[in-house]
Each structure stands twice: as structure tokens, then as C-alpha cells.
């Protein structure tokens, strides 16, 4: 009988028996110790006869062999250490064992494996420390021995406390035995007994331990365990943390926690403000690359907030992740969101959605979908529409507009949901269907009695896309006038960026800069803000200042179209040291609404290289959803054709005629230069336009 097999194996490092699990997981085909063995046993029988078996996943024979070897070495190292404590083993045997153990202990994995086990329970009275304390040689064994002996009182204390919590509700929900396994596997006991020699040291550990166990148990269990543990420890020296404000050069202030308890009536408000300050400061430290310092402060924040459950911790982590991603540290943002997800005990539908949104914003779409699906499982139905909308927005974020549209079209009574309808409007807009987009937005405003900033902003963007730049500016100014202080900070940021870009496009540079300055106070490390400031500086001749903003925006790392155009322009500037030019960028790397501009960028790069055939090819088969982008492409096409054939007459092209007569002024000037065959001037104007258009 052939049994379908899997890549999962049962390995017993002590008996050395190995078997491959069937794909159904019910049977085991024996592989070792007799390599020719092929007998089949039920899995429960295998486990019953091999009680130390673990289940591992290996994709190759080599990987399996390595896994078996490592498991074997770890278990034998434990045996050797215990033999050194066994009074029945002779010293001459112990000496030989110690030599082998010294070698094994040079592998940190093995060293800490043994520590994890033996630091989790106190040494029984019958064990003998004589050999390891007096006669053992070898640096690693001596180090192990010192730590082991030193930790015994704390091991005993922690073990007693943990046993005493056996029937605590926070423990029984998961099971004492299962939690013990988790604690040992996550090196919790070892961490506490080696690092927690004083009360202050235990307090410093709390954040680290809470994080490690976030996915395992309620953080209040950790707090409780450590509080009990530290009770009888010496006080120790507590570090004086600076009050977390913006600058590092402020003098040391009092422990800021003391500030909170002075006015207990306002404690909640103060706590909130304090947390907000900390969040901003921690995000700032990450943005500056001061990860160690940021992590320390983050640990403190987590420790404090964990006493009230997971919800506040998760919100803080999301908040910091959002700020950090805006500042360009995507990898840190990802890690923080992962940590937020690990607090599964405290997460609800809304929090999962929030985490999902943050993952979406850093383009981790699989993780975002995972969060939305988790939100769905916890939802009692009240958030179903919201979750559905976020999942559709995920398709939009991935550029899969057709799929997103089909999902929207399945929704009944979509007109009853302003949020969903604005989402559909935005999708239409991205697909270039401005008429249907406007219809959605107007419908939302009608439903909301004229008050919906998202719909208003959608209309403004539609105006921009159709080439009505001044109308778009008016509409954005109306938004700020009408909604004033009611706008969410993230919405205000988006609208001001859009308005600034419109000002830049219409060559109102001071107004553009003014809008950016308003955002930069709240988001000093914002990539988009700094990139746009850099462009304005270049446009206004302040190249040195541009340099500073580019450093903050980390331009070389960005792959957005705005940054690509900037790099293209700067590569021509001898003064600029950061840009490195890539000849061609892939259109498929960009969202559909940006591919038109990406095509223009490639055409521009080709024109600079005098490869006019390539320039024309770059503009073929590209769809433009924005009038300005389309006109830019028309001008570039004109440039290439004119350069290849000096007799090419623009009058044959209605689009060119329109641009020359009443098109957007920078493009109008460029077209005129081309009509006069002033190619050098035209290139300068086109490059300048690259700084305006995105």
C-alpha cells in the first residue's frame, strides 16, 4: 500500500527513531535507525513508544539530517551537564564528559538550550555541585557553572511562584503545562533568572518578556509573575530616563511618571497626552536611525500600557508604525505591526482592521489581508461592511482595479454607504472614468447633506485630472475652510500635499512651500513632504537646501514615480550628488494611474540619450487617466518625431494644436520651443516640467 507522504517528520533525539508522517498525519513510515526500515505505524503508537519525539518540517534529506544532528547534540549536551551533577558518576568519567561538553557549549544554540532547561527548575538536593564548582575546566563550562550556581536562589523563587499560579485564571485559560512549554521555549525563565537580579533589572526586562509572550498569553500574566518575583529582590539602581520630548540636549528631568500621579483627577488625560508625546518621540528616534534608543523607550511604553491590557499597546504600536513608515522606515514599520498582531488576546475587529490598514499602507498586502480576515472572524456583523470595503481597497492598492470594480458592483444598496461609495468614486477616478467618479462623490454629498471631506477631495482630484487645476485649488481651499479643525491629521496631511502639488504645478512656489511647512511640523520625516520641498528648492534655485531635503526623503531608496522623475532631473545636474539614473523603469512596477507618467519618464530618459525611437516606443500602449500626463506624453512624442524628422508638422495633430493654443502653460512653452526646433531649450523645459508634474 502506498501511503502519500508529506515533508513532516517525527524525530526522537533520544531513541534516534525517525519516521515520515503521511500527508493525512495519521501514519508514520519508519526511516531510522535502520535506514532500510519502511514499516508503517500509527502516529499515536510511534509517539507512545518514542515519547521524546518532535514533529519537524524538512524539505530535503540534508535538512533532515541537520535537524536530527542538532536535536541530538542538544539532548546529549543536556545529558552531559546533568552527568556532571550526578554523584554516582566517577570523576574520571566526568573529566572526559567535560571535554566533550566544552566543545558542544561553543555552539550558542546548544549552550542556551541547556540553560533554558536547567534554569527552569531548581536543582534537587541530591545533585552534587562539587565537580562543576571545583574541578571543571574549560571556559564555557566554568561560565555555565557560575551562572547556574548564582541563579539557583532565583530559580527556586520563580519556580515556586509559577507553581503557585497553577490555578490562576490567566494561566488556566491556556493550561499551566502548555504555558510552561512556551516559557521554556521562549527562554523566559532563563531571561528572568539571569537578568533579573534586582527590582530595577526586572522592571527593565518587563517589556522584552511581554513582547516575547505577546502571542502566547495575556500580558497581565507576565506583569503579575514579575511583580511577585521582584518583591523580595534588592532594589537596584533605576536608570533616570529623560522625559521623552523632542530634543536630546534637554537636562535630565524628574521621572516623568511622577508627573502623572501629582494630579490624579486628570490622570487619564495626562496619560493620553504623555503617551502621544512618547509615540511621536519614539517614531522620531526610529526615523533618525536611533533604533536602540527607540526600542528602549518602546519597551517602557509597552510595559506601562500592558498593565491595562493589550488594546492600548496595539494602538500605540500602530501609531508608531504609521509614523515610521511615513518617514521611510518600512522595515521597522513592518516589525512593529507584526508585534501588534502578536497581542492576539487583546485584539478585536477594529484593531485588526487598523493593523491591516497600516500593512496595506506599507504595501504588505498578504499581511493586510490576513488582518482583515481575522477581523472578519471576530466581527459580530456590525463591521462587516467596513471590512468588506477595506478588502476591496486592498485590490485597489495592488492595482487590480478590474477585480475591485467587480467587487463593488456586487454590493447591493451601495448608495446607502457613503464610505463605500467614495471608495468606488476613487476607483473610477484612478481608472480614468471621471464622469462616474463625480457621480459617486455627488451622491455621497447628497446623502451626507453636503458634508463629506473625502467626497469633496475626490471632486477636487477629478478637476485636477481633467486639467482644471485652478478649480482643483479652489476646491481644496474650500475643504480647509469648511472642515477647519474637524479633519483627521492623516486626511489633512493628504489634502495639503495635494494642494501643494497643485500650487507647484501652477508655479506658485511660495504657496506650495507654505503648505508643506504646515505638514512638516507634524511629520518632520515625511518622505513626500521632503521630496516636494526638495523639488521646490531646485525650481527656485536653492540646490544646497534641496540636498538636505533629499537626504531626509531618502530619495535613492524610493521607487515612487515622483522620486524617479526627480532623480531623472537631478542626474543632469552636476551639482547634485545623490541621484543615480536608471535608463528604463518598468511600468508594471507602478499603479495603473501612474504608468502614464512612468512612460513619460522613460521617454524623457531616451530623449536625453537621443534615442528617439525608444522614446516613441515608451509612449506606445500606455493609458493616461490624467489630462496633464496625457498632454506631457503628447509633447514628448512631438519632440521625438520632430527630432527624427525636422519636417514633422504639428498642425496634423489636433491634441498638439490644442496644447499650443490653450494648453497648460509650461507645456505650451515647450511645444512652441519644439515647433521652432529649439531642442536644447525644450529639454530644459521638459526637465523642469518633471519637477512640477509629480
Amino acid at each position: 500500500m502506498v501511503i502519500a507522504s508529506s515533508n513532516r517528520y517525527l524525530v526522537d533525539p533520544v531513541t534516534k527513531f525517525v519516521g515520515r508522517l503521511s500527508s493525512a498525519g495519521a501514519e508514520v513510515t519508519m526511516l531510522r535507525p535502520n535506514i532500510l526500515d519502511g514499516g508503517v505505524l500509527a502516529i499515536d503508537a510511534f509517539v507512545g513508544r518514542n515519547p521524546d519525539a518532535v514533529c519537524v518540517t524538512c524539505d530535503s534529506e540534508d535538512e533532515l539530517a541537520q535537524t536530527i544532528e542538532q536535536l541530538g547534540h542538544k539532548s546529549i549536551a543536556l545529558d552531559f551537564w546533568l552527568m556532571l551533577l550526578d554523584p554516582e558518576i566517577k570523576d574520571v568519567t566526568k573529566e572526559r564528559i567535560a571535554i566533550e561538553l566544552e566543545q558542544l557549549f561553543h555552539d550558542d544554540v546548544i549552550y542556551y538550550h541547556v540553560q533554558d532547561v536547567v534554569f527552569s527548575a531548581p536543582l534537587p538536593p541530591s545533585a552534587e555541585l562539587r565537580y562543576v564548582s571545583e574541578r571543571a575546566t574549560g571556559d564555557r563550562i566554568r561560565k555555565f557553572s557560575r551562572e547556574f550556581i548564582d541563579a539557583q536562589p532565583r530559580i527556586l523563587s520563580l519556580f515556586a511562584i509559577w507553581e503557585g499560579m497553577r490555578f490562576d485564571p490567566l494561566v488556566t485559560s491556556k493550561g499551566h503545562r502548555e504555558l510552561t512549554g512556551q516559557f521554556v521555549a521562549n527562554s523566559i525563565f532563563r531571561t528572568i533568572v539571569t537578568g533579573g537580579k534586582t527590582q530595577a533589572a526586572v522592571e527593565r526586562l518587563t517589556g522584552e518578556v511581554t513582547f516575547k509572550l505577546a502571542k502566547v498569553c495575556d500580558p497581565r500574566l507576565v506583569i503579575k509573575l514579575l511583580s511577585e518575583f521582584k518583591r523580595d529582590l534588592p532594589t537596584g539602581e533605576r536608570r533616570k530616563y529623560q522625559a521623552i520630548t523632542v530634543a536630546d540636549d534637554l537636562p535630565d528631568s524628574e521621572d516623568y511618571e511622577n508627573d502623572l500621579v501629582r494630579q490624579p483627577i486628570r490622570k487619564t488625560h495626562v496619560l493620553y497626552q504623555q503617551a502621544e508625546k512618547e509615540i511621536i518621540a519614539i517614531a522620531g528616534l526610529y526615523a533618525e536611525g536611533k533604533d536602540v534608543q527607540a526600542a528602549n523607550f518602546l519597551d517602557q511604553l509597552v510595559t506601562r500600557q500592558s498593565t491595562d491590557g493589550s488594546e492600548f499597546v496595539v494602538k500605540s504600536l500602530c501609531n508608531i508604525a504609521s509614523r515610521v513608515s511615513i518617514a521611510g522606515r518600512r522595515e521597522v514599520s513592518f516589525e512593529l505591526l507584526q508585534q501588534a498582531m502578536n497581542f492576539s488576546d487583546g485584539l478585536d475587529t477594529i484593531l485588526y482592521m487598523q493593523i491591516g490598514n497600516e500593512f496595506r499602507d506599507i504595501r504588505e498586502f498578504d499581511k493586510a489581508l490576513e488582518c482583515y480576515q481575522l477581523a472578519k472572524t471576530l466581527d459580530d456583523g456590525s463591521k462587516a461592511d467596513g471590512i468588506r470595503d477595506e478588502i476591496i481597497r486592498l485590490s485597489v492598492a495592488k492595482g487590480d482595479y478590474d477585480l475591485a470594480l467587480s467587487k463593488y458592483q456586487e454590493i447591493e444598496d451601495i448608495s446607502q454607504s457613503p464610505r463605500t461609495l467614495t471608495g468606488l468614486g476613487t476607483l473610477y477616478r484612478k481608472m480614468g472614468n471621471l464622469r462616474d467618479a463625480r457621480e459617486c462623490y455627488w451622491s455621497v454629498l447628497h446623502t451626507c447633506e453636503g458634508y463629506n471631506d473625502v467626497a469633496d477631495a475626490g471632486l477636487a482630484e477629478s478637476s485636477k485630472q481633467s486639467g482644471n487645476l485652478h478649480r482643483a485649488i479652489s476646491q481644496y481651499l474650500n475643504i480647509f475652510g469648511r472642515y477647519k479643525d474637524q479633519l483627521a491629521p492623516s486626511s489633512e496631511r493628504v489634502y495639503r500635499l495635494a494642494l501643494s502639488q497643485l500650487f507647484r504645478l501652477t508655479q506658485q512656489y511660495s504657496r506650495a512651500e507654505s503648505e508643506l511647512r504646515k505638514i512638516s511640523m507634524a511629520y518632520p520625516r515625511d518622505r513626500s513632504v521632503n521630496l516636494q520641498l526638495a523639488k521646490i528648492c531646485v525650481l527656485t534655485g536653492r540646490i544646497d537646501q534641496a540636498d538636505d531635503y533629499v537626504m531626509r526623503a531618502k530619495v535613492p531608496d524610493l521607487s515612487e514615480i515622483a522620486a524617479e522623475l526627480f532623480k531623472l532631473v537631478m542626474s543632469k545636474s552636476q551639482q547634485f550628488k545623490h541621484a543615480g539614473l536608471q535608463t528604463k523603469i518598468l511600468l508594471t512596477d507602478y499603479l495603473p494611474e501612474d504608468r502614464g507618467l512612468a512612460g513619460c519618464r522613460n521617454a524623457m530618459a531616451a530623449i536625453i540619450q537621443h534615442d528617439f525611437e525608444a522614446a516613441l516606443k515608451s509612449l506606445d500602449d500606455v493609458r493616461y487617466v490624467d489630462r496633464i500626463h496625457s498632454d506631457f506624453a503628447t509633447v514628448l512624442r512631438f519632440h521625438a518625431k520632430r527630432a527624427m524628422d525636422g519636417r514633422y508638422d504639428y498642425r496634423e495633430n489636433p491634441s498638439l494644436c490644442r496644447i499650443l493654443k490653450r494648453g497648460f502653460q509650461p507645456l505650451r512653452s515647450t511645444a512652441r520651443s519644439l515647433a521652432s526646433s529649439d531642442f536644447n531649450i525644450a529639454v530644459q523645459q521638459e526637465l523642469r516640467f518633471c519637477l512640477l508634474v509629480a
Partner: protein
Amino acid sequence: MSAVKAKVRTCPDCKFGMTISRTSCPHCGRPAFAPNVDLAEDPDEREKLRDRYTAALAECDKKGTRAIADDFDAACRSSRAVFALGVQKLYRQVCTGTDIFETYYDLERLKNRTEAGTGLDWASLRPRAEIELLGSHFNIEHIYYACLSLEGHFLAHYGDCVVTLSETLTAHRISCFEGNTAVQYHQKAGFSGLVRSNWQNRNEICVAMFAEQLHLGSTQADFPAILVQRGSTSVDDIFVEVHLFGPMTVRTFESVRFDRRKHGSLESHLVAGIIDKLNACNIKVL
């Protein structure tokens, strides 16, 4: 799994009754009991075994091998319970019953399983064969396995360290079974038709299982290899399985035999440690 009717026993000291799953009398707290032996000594099981035994001997009469069968029967009355295992498993077994080690080994097991974490629900992987064997899930963790052996023959699939159990410390809590219970259960989903015995009647189960393999040319020298037959895979081994109920420590051993040539450098240190501990307990090392 077939249901086994709840069996009862009477305490020889206080004369009160209890279910056989009890390992000591709940009334007077006295002696330790072995459920596996109770089941083997059940009248129905005795009768089943007796029938198989007499039928096997009758068959030998027909074949003309009765004398050889009688010799085999006599030899099996002096068979011993042995088990083979690897060095590291032997070392940990030798350490069982000392408080130094058991807690740490249990923690290591928990750690390894938590770290590996590939979706197995370990708590639910209770050996069904043992539950069927004992009639309930009680006490299944108290069973140790060995095989009946003549002249120290053993099943090399399980390791090259051979332990012979002390008859004095085990005879009262050993039962024997027709074949590998794990394999039998897996292949036949039960034990119907198979026989079991207590220690005193182990010769009957040997005859019932192996009499048909005796032939006119069989001699005493062949008996050890007949009683323990190593198959091409561990699943194909043929032997009389021994179930030892209750605790087992190094003092439960009568002797230990090593094949020293096969041990690598790491294992050789374990062997040295095992020998030290065996010597400390006056257990024979062969």
C-alpha cells in the same frame, strides 16, 4: 475501539472490591496492582490461551514434532524479559527514578515540542493500542515494553544495548502478548483472536505462537531465533511482547549488555556514565 467490560478485583487484604484500573486499594491503601496482569488472568483469556496452546500441541502431535515442542515449551518456561534500546535512551532510563533528572527531561520535551510546533496536538495522541490493551485510558503511561528471549536474543531494530529485567522485581507485574501490540492494532484495529498470558504461563503463549514453526530438524540451538524473529522492518519483527507495569529504575535491571564497538565518541561517554551508575547499584554489566 471495542469496549471492554469494566473488570473488578477484590483486595487480598481488606477484601473490598475495586475496578482493575486501580493500582492500589482505595480502601486500605495496600498493595500495588497491575491491570495488565489482571486482564491476562481473566478466566476468558485463560481459556482462550489454553485452547490455543492445546491446539498447537495437538498439531505438533500430528506433525510428529511433539517432542521438540515439549522441549521448546520447557525452554520457554525459563525465558527472560529483555529489551533493546540505544545508548542515550538507556542512559535516561538508568537515570529514571532519580530526582536529578526527571524534571529536566520533561522540560526538555516540552521545550522541543513547543519550538517545533508543527500543528500536532500532542495531548490527543494517546496510544490507542494501549487503551485497547488495558481497557481504559488509565495507566497507559505506566507500561514498559520488552520481549521474551532465550539466551539474550534481542530485537536489534531498537538499539544495541540489551537490558535483561530482574525476574524477582517484575514477575508479578508482567503480562505477555501475542506480537507487537502497536503493529497488531494498526493492522487489525483490535486484538480479537490474539492471546495474552501472565508471567507464569508465558510458555503457553510461546507454544501457541511458534509451535507450527518447529520441524523435525529443529534443535535447542534454534529456539532463541524462533522466539525472537527479526523482520526486514521493525514492523515485521515477530516476538512475544512483554508488558511491564509500573515503575522501572536501574534496580529493576538484572544485567546490561553493550556492543561497545558501535559507539561513537559522544555515546562512549554515556556508556561510561551508565557503567558507573550500574556499578553503583551492583547491576551486572556484560
